[in-house]
């Protein structure tokens, strides 16, 4: 099932609804990188609250999306990684090092707003 992408002001919200297949992920990546330019978005929140597993392909894709959207001027934030998912990711060495991660969608939007306002955000 493709991930719906919502536009909210200058932020895109990708709200994952179900487990992601590799092709879902590729499609998500294509859509986001495309729409960031089309809507001139400054930020992207990918909400993964529903996911109870995150494999290396998913993590790699999320990182790639973050890097790609950054090149097109939008910061990507991953929101809602669950406790068990977070710990198993770390154990597998999938730490999403240079991608901002937050507790939930609210936090993601707040973080993006503060970054846009040019406040020296905490380097994550």
């Amino acid at each position: 099932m493709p991930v719906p992408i919502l536009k909210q002001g200058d932020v895109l919200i990708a709200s994952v609804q179900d487990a992601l297949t590799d092709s879902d992920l590729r499609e998500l990546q294509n859509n986001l990188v495309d729409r960031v330019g089309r809507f001139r978005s400054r930020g992207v929140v990918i909400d993964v609250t529903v996911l109870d597993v995150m494999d290396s392909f998913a993590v790699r894709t999320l990182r790639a999306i973050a890097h790609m959207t950054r090149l097109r001027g939008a910061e990507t934030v991953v929101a809602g990684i669950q406790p068990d998912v977070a710990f198993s990711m770390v154990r597998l060495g999938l730490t999403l090092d240079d991608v901002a991660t937050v507790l939930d969608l609210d936090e993601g939007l707040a973080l993006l707003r503060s970054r846009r306002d040019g406040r020296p955000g905490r380097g994550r």
Partner: protein
Amino acid sequence: MNERTGRAVDAASFESLMKEMNITDEEIERRKDWLEFADEDVQRVRSLNALARRVQDELIELLYHHFLAFPETRGFFQDTELLEHVKAMQKEYFIRLTEGDYNREYVLDRLKIGATHARIGLDTKWYLGAYAFHIRALAERLFEEYRDDPKAALDIFLSLIKLEFLDIGLAIDTYIAQRERVIRIQQEAIRELSTPVLQVRDRLLIMPIIGVIDPHRARQLTEQLLHSIRDTRARVVVMDITGVLTVDSRIANHLIQTVEASRLMGATVIVSGLSADVAQTLVRIGVDLSKIVTVCDLQGGLEEADRIMADYGAKSQDAVAEASTP
């Protein structure tokens, strides 16, 4: 060897104890095989039945005379009513011992008795001593009965030994299982008590860790922290390890993993309370903690947390202001 409070016995709980101890029909057969307790042994022990019935009263009196001679065991038989009850149970057991049919029900009875003894706190030494007493007393009468055929007497005696050892084994295992159950419950309690996650302020947690961190506890600690982050929407966590005297590379790596996992959930972890010894050890064994914010004491940790929260606070106030302006 006595049943003190039959009324308190809850069949379901013994079934679960049996499951816990992994006593299945198969296991019972294994135990018998190991003791080489075969059908002929059953026959021989059964042939004792008549003798056992004849001497039961005498044996019980001797045994309880023995019990009452020692202050440690006398304490268990304070009132006469109880004493009579226990004697009756005991007699029943001695007869049952020679009636054959050493099946699941029989085993369950043995477990009940072991559990009862463990509960009233009769130590195994008294329990084993009583068995020895019974074996000796019965053997005397047995060999006297078979005066003309010592070979037969010996065979019966050896079969009886096998059976009594089967019973002893079961009862002792129950003792151990009961103690282990207590230990397990206590460990659980200690663990829960020893890793509290405290909310100090809105979205700021403190997690003091005291004592030894073993892999199991480390795992539990992490789980608890991550779930607390989600439940309280924490942004900053101060993990204070003042009470952890030694940190090895495995624990350090686990701390790093916990910090990383917290970051994935959007929370910053500050590790406070690294003593001089711990700092020296970590550097000597070459653990890289550069990814983690570390400070030397809890006060420093809270100050650092305040700085981070203030940073966030400024941001979220902006966010709120912005959200309320159309």
